[in-house]
Every structure is written in C-alpha cells, then in structure tokens.
C-alpha cells in the first residue's frame, strides 16, 4: 500500500515533467539514430576486382555483383589483382583462378569489408550470406585488419544496451538525489514506511517507465533503424528491461554518495565510461588477461553479451540465461545495498 503510494507518486511526477519523459524516451532513440547514420548508413558500393580465367562461369558472378551495386574490374592474373588491392584501387579481390575461389579484402574499413564480403558470398553461394555463416570452402584473406573488426551490426546491440542503461541511470540518480536534498526523503521516513518499501516504491514507479523505454528502444532499433536482428523481440525487450533495472538500482544507490546533481554527473566518467570500453564496443583480445577480467563486475558487459547473442546470433533463453541471471543478481544486490544505505537516514 505504501509502496504503491510511492510508485504512484513517482509516476505522477513523471507525467507532469514532460522534458524528463522526453529525455528518457527520445534521447536514446536520437542517439541511436545518429550512431546509425555515422556507422551504419548505406555502405559505400565496394569496387571489386575479378581475376578472370577464360572458360569459367565468372560471367554470372560478375553480373550478379554488378547488379548488387558493386563496381567490377577485371584482372588477367592474381598478381595484377593483388597489386591493385595493395594500391587501394579496389576494396576486394575475387580470385577464381585457383582450385577454390579465393577472396582477398583490403580490410581497413570494416563497413566496406563487410559489404564486399556480403556481396561476394551472395554471388558465390546464395543463401550463405543470409545465414551469416561463412562458406567453408571459401578462403578469405585480409590485407589489413581481420574479420574480427567490428561494424555497426556488431556493436549496434551494445549501443542499444548502453543508451537505455545510461539515461535510466542518470534519471534515477538525479530523482533520488532530489528526494534527499529537498528534505522529502527525511519527511518520508518520518512516516511509518519501511526502508525496503521506499526502494520498492522507486522500483515500481520507475519500473513502469523503464519497461516502456525498453520496449520503445527494442522496437525502434529493429523496426525503424533496421539493426540486424535474428532473435526474438521479446527476449530483446527482456534484456533491455533487466539492464534498465540494474541502471535504476545502481543510479539510486550511487546518488546516496552524491551531494548535488553535478556530483551525479561526476559518476559518468567513473561508472558509465569504463563500462562502455569493456562491454564489447572495442576488441579486448589484445588486453592483459587480468585487466580483461574487470568486465566481469560490469553490468553492461552482461547486457551487451546477451543483446549480441539475441540480435546477432539469434540465441534463445537457453543460451543467454546466465547473462540475465547476473543482471538480475546485480539489480537485487544494488537494491539491497540501497535499503542498507537508507540506514544513514533512519536506522529502522
């Protein structure tokens, strides 16, 4: 009853504060859209070199590539093709001269590499590109870089998680802080409300909006931005929701250690930015193994991992549940710490 009253009050406050509502709902969409423009915009039509061998079926291949928007250049032998690739005249080279087709990618721009590879795979074996799997017989070489270089499809899921997390963290932190600095928290605790009821009320009130936000982000990124999405929409929403819940509990917990709004902002470089680095936006394979373990304490790492699983690999609950369990554990832990932190205000 008291929890419900608190949740209801938070909802009313939200509904009266249109700007904050807009921040919660529209800001993630705006940033995701911008990111999509920057990284995922129509990839430049690659120019592809074709090493022709008389009497083979390369005519159909070249035609298919041309139809898909690629610029085709022919080369008489592998050597001249490779020189052109090195000079950057072409983005990719398809060598049909050998026993098996060989692909060489220039490789410095992941977006171009991906586009080229996609086109080539499609041209060589229709269906292979759709499933995302590489044809086993196909040999792919990178002149620079490697296949592990990410592209928007690869880190889109991370961004989806990140922005949901970030804005909920900020709002929850500021709003709980305000409750403390305006004295209403103290006044609240002069009433016979239990500390856990306060935390639960916050979860309830904010939870409604984070649920809406999770749904909105999931829908927008897959249906409007057209992010690569193989798995279930509901699972995507569930991951977003758990991630937002973690952000909510973490934000309210940390606001206990902030004296004003500016100090909440100071948590961003301390709490948010490191998580961005460790959550999968950047390849950490080259990092010292011990340092890499830092990510194990970062909620965003698990959220991003689950999102990548659902969106890129089409994984189901069976394979992402450990991530979800960890996120739930984080939320629970932060909520409990919140209840404890309220002891500072009232000892029972």
């Amino acid at each position, binding site marked *: *009853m*008291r929890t*419900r*009253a*608190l949740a*209801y*009050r938070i909802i*009313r*406050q939200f509904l*009266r*504060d249109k700007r904050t509502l807009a921040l919660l709902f529209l800001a993630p969409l705006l940033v995701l859209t911008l990111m999509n423009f920057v990284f995922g915009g129509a990839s430049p039509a690659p120019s592809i070199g074709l090493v022709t061998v008389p009497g083979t079926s390369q005519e159909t291949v070249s035609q298919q590539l041309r139809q898909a928007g690629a610029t085709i250049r022919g080369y008489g032998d592998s050597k001249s093709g490779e020189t052109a690739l090195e000079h950057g005249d072409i983005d990719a080279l398809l060598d049909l001269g050998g026993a098996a087709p060989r692909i060489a990618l220039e490789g410095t721009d992941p977006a171009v590499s991906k586009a080229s590879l996609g086109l080539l795979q499609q041209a060589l074996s229709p269906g292979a590109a759709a499933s995302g799997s590489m044809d086993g017989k196909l040999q792919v070489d990178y002149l620079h870089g490697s296949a592990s270089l990410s592209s928007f499809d690869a880190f889109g899921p991370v961004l989806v998680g990140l922005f949901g997390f970030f804005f909920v963290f900020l709002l929850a932190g500021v709003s709980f802080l305000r409750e403390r600095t*305006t*004295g*209403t928290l*103290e*006044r*609240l*605790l*002069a*009433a*016979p*409300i*239990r500390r856990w009821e306060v935390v639960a009320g916050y979860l309830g009130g904010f939870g409604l909006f984070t649920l809406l936000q999770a749904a909105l982000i999931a829908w927008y990124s897959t249906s409007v931005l057209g992010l690569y999405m193989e798995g279930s929409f509901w699972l995507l929403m569930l991951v977003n929701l758990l991630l937002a819940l973690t952000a909510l509990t973490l934000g309210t917990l940390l606001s206990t250690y902030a004296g004003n709004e500016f100090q909440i902002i100071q948590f961003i470089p301390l709490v948010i930015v490191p998580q961005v680095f460790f959550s999968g936006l950047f390849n950490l394979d080259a990092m010292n193994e011990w340092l890499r373990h830092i990510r194990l304490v970062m909620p965003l790492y698990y959220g991003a991992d689950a999102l990548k699983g659902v969106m890129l690999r089409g994984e189901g609950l069976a394979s992402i549940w450990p991530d979800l369990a960890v996120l739930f554990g984080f939320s629970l832990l932060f909520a409990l710490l919140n209840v404890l932190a309220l002891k500072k*205000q*009232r*000892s*029972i």
Partner: protein
Amino acid sequence: MDHPTLPAADLRQITRRLGNREVLRNLSLQIPRGRLTGLLGPSGSGKTTLVKLLAGIDKADEGEVTVLGRSMPALPVLQRIGYMAQSDALYADLTAKDNLVFFGKLYGLRGSRLQERIAAVMALVALDDHLHKSVAAYSGGMKRRLSLAISLLHEPELLLLDEPTVGIDPVLRQSIWRELLQLRDGGTTILMTTHVMDEAEKCDSIAFIRSGELTAAGSPRELMERSGASSIEQAFIAMGEGVTA
C-alpha cells in the same frame, strides 16, 4: 509500556554529535502529555536536532529517546506522530492534493476517509481554494501551511512542529493557534519550536535550550518568576545567557 500518566516523550541524557561538534550535550527533557510545549533557544542551539530525534529520523549517539512508551526509532510510533519539518518537504512539481494524497496514504488513510481529512486540514489552514494548485505556484507562507496540514492529516497523538508559524501573517497565525489549542484540548500533545515570544507565552510549558544544553524548563509564569523578568522575552534573554535561577 505506554501509559496515559507517562510523559509523551522522554529524553534521557541525550548527546548528539554532528561533524565533530556536540550539538546536543547530555540533555534530559520530558514532554508532558496533552500539553503544548514550546522549545525555545537561539538559532543553532539544537532545537531542530532535538525534534528530529523525537521524530525518529535521527539517532542519538548517547542516551535514550522514548516516545509514546517506545524507545525510538520505532515504526508503530511513527504512525502516531505528526511531523512538520523546519524546511518544507513538499513535492513542488505536484499539486497540493497530490502531496496530501501521497502522505495520507503513507499513514494508511484511503478512500472517503482520506478525502474527508484532506478537506478538513486544508480548511484549517485556509488553503481549501488552492487544493488543485501546483505547489511550485505556492507562496512561502502557503507552503508552510500545507506542511502543517500534512502533519495533521492522520490525527496524530503527538505533533512535532518545527517553527510552524514562520512566514504566516498575524491573522492566519491567530486562527492556526486557535486550532492548535483546540487540538490540545482534545488531548493531542504538541511540541513546537518557535522564536516568537508572544507565542511562547501561550505555551503550557517552555523548555529553553542553549548550545545543546537545557537551561530551563517550566511554565511561562514559573520561568518569569525564576529569572525575575517581567516578560518571556526578557526571561529568554536572561536564560539564553545561561543565567538560570
């Protein structure tokens, strides 16, 4: 256990440190039941700190605070206390009604009973015309009155009012005092802090504190006699300087 003959609140040898200062030092005080007690003292003497201890939102470092028969803080006692903070703790982005409904529900009021109480307390502080106004659009005095109304919502046995009449005009102040005295006559125990001397004279008993220590307590007349002063104001100045009789 709680008993009508026991004091409503009993502070025994309280010490409260904030920062590295002793804001209250070895202070003992009893708040008699069914009476209006005034807490007087210079600014920074520890009045608000004392009231917060009684309200259960602060804890003494030493000593024991008993309110309505229970050692504080205790949740069931909080239900029986009405607390008005010195600084208005209101949700400015909500309407007065939203604020009242929220706090009312925290004290377990609901339905028609809640609506009745809201109407009653808002009439008492003469804010009934501004029920649906956003608190952000309230004046300072209106916020004070709304805070008072909220503390009265659940008809508490013990009212803790921290400077309830600051910023309220004389006419309204008089009518609020009439209501407070009526509540007292109905059996409510009231503790209020104040700086206003003519208010102090209306209290049944007065406690003076200075630098965290109790310097005198008694009825206004007793205190005037003891300090040889002709008014409470003079007694206040005399007691405030530590001249105890």
